[in-house]
């Protein structure tokens, strides 16, 4: 194995391959920054170019584009609330509020450090354990995925911090409801498509996220024009827009968050049925729980932890998804499916024998990920002050631009004009909900987890002949469900218990 790693290292640092890492990262970052356009678009663009390259070189280029796009996707999430990639939707939860407060540079820097750390830690994990991790990707069955989605849904509590629990739950339910639109997998019948053929395939997550966040935000700006006093205040807040400075306190806060989220993200990424989006939501929910009462309340208002957690997790998951791809030949996401196709066209079949048959390809790709993360950091940090200045563009120009790029971005995914109409409809509805103070993030959470939760549950029931016994028969499922129950109940019990304890102590004192 060591010999293979060394061989991979020598391949990865050849000038052409280094050039490809840099080129891939740059292209990926740029495409990822455009709202709606993600790694799939970026990699698909690269495919014709890769035909003429060596397998390792081609794959290194594609991998660079992949994590470059995830990296770049956070920029549009943070600056204009328009997630470039589904995996960076959770980044907008705290990144955008932070940028709005005038700390855009800081938010981008936190995202860059988090992405770098997540990607690097995951690359190290890959290097150390990739071949033996394959079995982990296969331990999860539909019942376990179902439990994982239930655990993910408990994260909804993270959004209740701002006050209204009922509203957060209602919006989660709305998201669950929207996820049922389209063709039902287990019976093949159409649900709530109302005879509209364009709804047969359901509603895309990115469309929903862009409508709820970017479009509705732009519409709100039009609806509520700023007063002159506000504008002056904003100008002052923007004076150090480009500053990357983090206080010692903030760095201290980030370190444990990043280490936890990168490991969580990596293992969720290893599972073929989960992926970067799920990883970012899980990390966000977990960190909100662990942050404690005071810090937890800051989530959703520009919390350092709330930004670092999903940003770390999605990059780690991205690297993690290479485990099933390379060691089993199983793509866990659309992006890795395209990469699998490219590998096969080189005559390389990924699988348990890849690292023995083609050690150069296997190890050079993993090592190039490490290099790629360094490249991304070096490439992005100096640019942040300039990119952050986008926010100082007057809103009369910025708002139409956001509207334009959001609509074009969603259209370029499907090439279906119906999606544009649908998006505008959702955006208008989202504006109404925002005016009534309904949080929109829980809706997205309910949508993405709800769809997967239903599919996995129904699959589990089918396999188990409609018996629910898998809940207690499979230890893994049971464990995850117990953790989910505990995350819901424990904080309540602890607060009750501590009140009871304090009361008792006080009584004793009184005696």
């Amino acid at each position, binding site marked *: 194995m060591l010999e293979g790693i060394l061989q991979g290292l020598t391949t990865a640092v050849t000038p052409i391959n280094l050039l490809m890492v840099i080129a891939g990262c740059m292209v990926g970052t740029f495409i990822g920054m455009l709202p709606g*356009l*993600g790694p*799939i*678009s970026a990699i*698909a*663009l690269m*495919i*014709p170019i890769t*035909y003429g390259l060596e397998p390792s070189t081609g794959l290194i280029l594609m991998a660079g584009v992949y994590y470059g796009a995830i990296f770049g996707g956070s920029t549009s999430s943070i600056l204009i609330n328009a997630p470039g990639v*589904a995996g960076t939707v959770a980044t907008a939860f705290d990144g955008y509020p932070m940028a709005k407060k005038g700390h855009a540079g800081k938010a981008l820097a936190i995202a860059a450090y988090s992405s770098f750390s997540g990607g690097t830690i995951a690359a190290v994990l890959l290097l150390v354990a990739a071949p033996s991790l394959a079995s982990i*990707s*296969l*331990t*999860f*069955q*539909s*019942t376990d995925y179902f439990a994982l989605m239930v655990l993910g849904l408990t994260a909804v509590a993270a959004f209740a911090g701002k006050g209204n629990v009922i509203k957060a739950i209602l919006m989660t339910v709305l998201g669950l409801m929207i996820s049922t639109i389209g*063709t*039902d*997998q*287990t*019976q*093949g019948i159409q649900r709530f498509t109302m005879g509209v*053929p*364009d709804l*047969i*395939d*359901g509603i*895309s*997550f990115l469309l929903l996220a862009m409508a709820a966040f970017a479009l509705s935000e732009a519409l709100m700006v039009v609806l509520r024009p700023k007063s002159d006093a506000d504008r002056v205040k904003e100008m002052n807040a923007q004076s150090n827009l480009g500053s990357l400075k983090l206080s010692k306190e903030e760095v201290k806060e980030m370190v444990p968050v990043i280490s936890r989220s990168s490991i969580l993200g990596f293992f969720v990424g290893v599972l*073929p*049925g989960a992926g970067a989006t799920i990883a970012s939501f899980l990390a966000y929910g977990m960190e909100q729980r662990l942050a404690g009462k005071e810090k937890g309340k800051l989530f959703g208002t520009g919390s350092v932890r709330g930004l670092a957690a999903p940003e770390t997790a999605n990059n780690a998951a991205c690297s993690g998804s290479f485990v099933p791809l390379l060691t*089993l*030949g*199983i*793509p*866990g*996401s*659309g992006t890795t*499916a*395209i990469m*699998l*196709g490219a590998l*096969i*066209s080189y005559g390389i*079949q990924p*699988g*348990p*024998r890849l690292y023995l048959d083609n050690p150069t390809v296997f190890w050079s790709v993993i090592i190039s990920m490490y290099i790629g993360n360094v490249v991304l950091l070096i490439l992005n940090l100096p640019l942040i002050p300039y990119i952050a200045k986008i926010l100082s563009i007057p809103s009369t120009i910025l708002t139409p631009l956001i509207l334009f790029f959001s609509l074009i971005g969603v259209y*370029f*995914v*499907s*090439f*279906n004009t*119906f999606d544009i109409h649908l998006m505008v409809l959702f955006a208008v509805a989202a504006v109404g909900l925002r005016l009534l103070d309904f949080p929109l993030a829980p809706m997205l959470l309910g949508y993405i987890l709800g769809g997967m939760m239903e*599919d996995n549950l129904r*699959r589990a029931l*089918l*396999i188990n*002949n409609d018996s629910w016994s898998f809940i207690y028969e499979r230890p893994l499922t049971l464990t995850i469900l117990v953790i989910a129950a505990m995350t819901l109940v424990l904080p309540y019990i602890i607060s009750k218990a501590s009140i009871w304890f304090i009361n008792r102590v006080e009584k004793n004192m009184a005696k």
Partner: protein
Amino acid sequence: MNKSTRNFLAASAAISAMIFAPAVSANPIEEIHFLIPGGPGGGWDGTARGTGEALAKAGAVKSVSFENMSGGGGGKAIAHLIETADKAKTTLMVNSTPIVIRSLQGVFPQSFRDLTPVAGIIGDYAAFVVHKGSDLADFTALSNKYKADPKSVAIGGGSVAGGMDHLVAAMVMKAAGADPKAVKYIPYDAGGKAMAGLLSGEISALSTGFGEAIDLAKQGEVNILCVTAKERLAEAPDTPTCYEQGAAVEFVNWRGFFAAPGISDEKKAEYVAALEDMYETPEWETVRARNGWVNIFNGGEDFVDFLEYQEGEMKTLMTELGFL
């Protein structure tokens, strides 16, 4: 391909026509516009772009262009082609077996009869696959276990219930003399996830495309129990057919092209000839080998006959299964 996969491939390519320099051909066609009913990156997209590339590079067509139009399981593009038939004489739409299935299901009101079928060009047989550690040694073992207790055999696939993988499983079981209605079909949202389900041990067998299965079989992860061809395939002489194991049925998932309704017979003949001649070119061979496709040319009237036969077979099966 799942929702997230059906994605943007090359905006530039979709917007601007890609023009290749023609090499040699006696009588090149002026222009072909490929209409792709799904998003970039999927199987339809690859077929259309690969064919266009081969035709243009071989000099059989002077200019080719591509247009993605997803929606309604392909129905949007079909409706568009019919609506604009007068102006779309140079358009070829790519499609595959699902056009037959979805039209029967009523996903869209039109069928292949409302278009001009040109030719089927590539195909993939279906296969039954088990995990390498499975106690099911061959298809007979699988069908016997199924006959004894259908509920004990969970068969997965990468499409919805009533979709192609499900229908193939039912079709083969029926041919083996078992009850097709009892198939315990477990749907996954993509072929890759179905394969992960098989390897995790939650399903006993997988109904999938032979092309997808053979690569994993070569890695020793899975065993192919049988392939839905009449005779053993040249590229896999060791893989038994379902035919020889008591399930006399043949199924091939084709991909091919359709022109707008009402184009002239000469125009149609020109397209059929261009696609047939394409087989001989090294340019096509490059594209074909790169994608691992199997040549099965089925042009003009033969293609229409085949579609009618497949439709009849699917209709019987789907009626029996209660999907119609």
